């Protein structure tokens, strides 16, 4: 990616932060989100996370790779289980990376 596009992306991302975080602080009194839309928006971030995470875990080199020899898939599942058991964000990253490294070297 060329440098110019990276700088434009940084500006766009900053705009996105401001629009989503400060938008309601600025215009909240003028806007009323319909409850149905608010409800639907509530599901968007989790869906977006899944849409980013799953391809990283389940594909490699543009091809689906759902196998017991795929270290990212196994480490991702392991990290997910670790988080559900402990609710600890940082521990999840450490445990997941450790598992990933062990699997990467072993498989």
């Amino acid at each position, binding site marked *: 990616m060329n440098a110019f*596009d*990276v700088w434009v992306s940084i500006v766009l991302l900053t705009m996105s*932060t*401001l629009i989503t*975080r400060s*938008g309601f602080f600025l215009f909240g009194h003028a806007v009323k989100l319909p409850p149905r839309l608010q409800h639907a928006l509530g599901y968007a971030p989790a869906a977006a996370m*899944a849409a980013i995470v799953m391809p990283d875990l389940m594909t490699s080199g543009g091809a689906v790779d759902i196998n017991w020899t795929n270290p990212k898939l196994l480490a991702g599942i392991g990290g997910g289980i670790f988080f559900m058991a402990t609710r600890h964000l940082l521990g999840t*990253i450490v445990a*997941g990376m450790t598992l990933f490294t062990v699997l990467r070297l072993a498989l």
Partner: protein
Amino acid sequence: MNKETDAGDSRPDPGMESAAAKSKAQARRIEKEAFQEGWRASASTIPAVLAWGVVSGMAMVKSGMTIWQSLAMTLTVYAGSAQFAVLPLLAAHTPLIVIFLTAMIVNLRFVIFSAAVAPHFAHLPWYRRVWYGYFNGDISMGFFPQRFPAHTVHQPAGKLGFFEAVCYPGWFAWQIGAIVGILLASQIPESWNIGFAGTLALIAIMIPMIINRAALAGVVVSGAVAVAAINLPYRLGLLLAVVIGMAAAMLADKFIVKEKE
């Protein structure tokens, strides 16, 4: 500044300068105590924010950005999950519009957050509302509404102090961590795949968002569509997956409500 914060207080008699000064000092004391309360409530999150900042800094440099680009991104964007989401897209030469839309979707939860917090600061001038809005991320959302529920909207006392104590130390911790990560990244070999830490972080952020079976349906459908559509151009599979995932969650909600009736 105190023009707004005094508006809700009982007004001292006109001409009584000392009474006005006393109430000003009292208002300042309330904000100071609220700041200490906010700090006590949120201080335990600082180590995690710091460490996660380190991960974000390393992930930026490892995705191919320069040190200056990474510094600019962390200091201005200040939205970890959006950054983690966009980094692989940047590396894959994705069109800017898809990058922007992806960031918007990942950031959508902030719209819900700010709809909850913004009314508490409606009495401030616009530039201060933009300023406080910028800091209203995941951490403030975890503490502020709990301390100041919706029915306290018209009682401004203590809110600014509490909010600042939750937000500002978190900002500094995140940025210090990110800068350390950016500077350390070049010492870490490529084969460690440190960027995978970003994916693990997203998993840990995603799981608490699965608040009911409808949200679970949304996540499963969105993930499956994203994997199936991996070879669509411009990473369009990502946006397609989110839209179909949201629709699946809404549909699931409908069935679950029917089931209960």
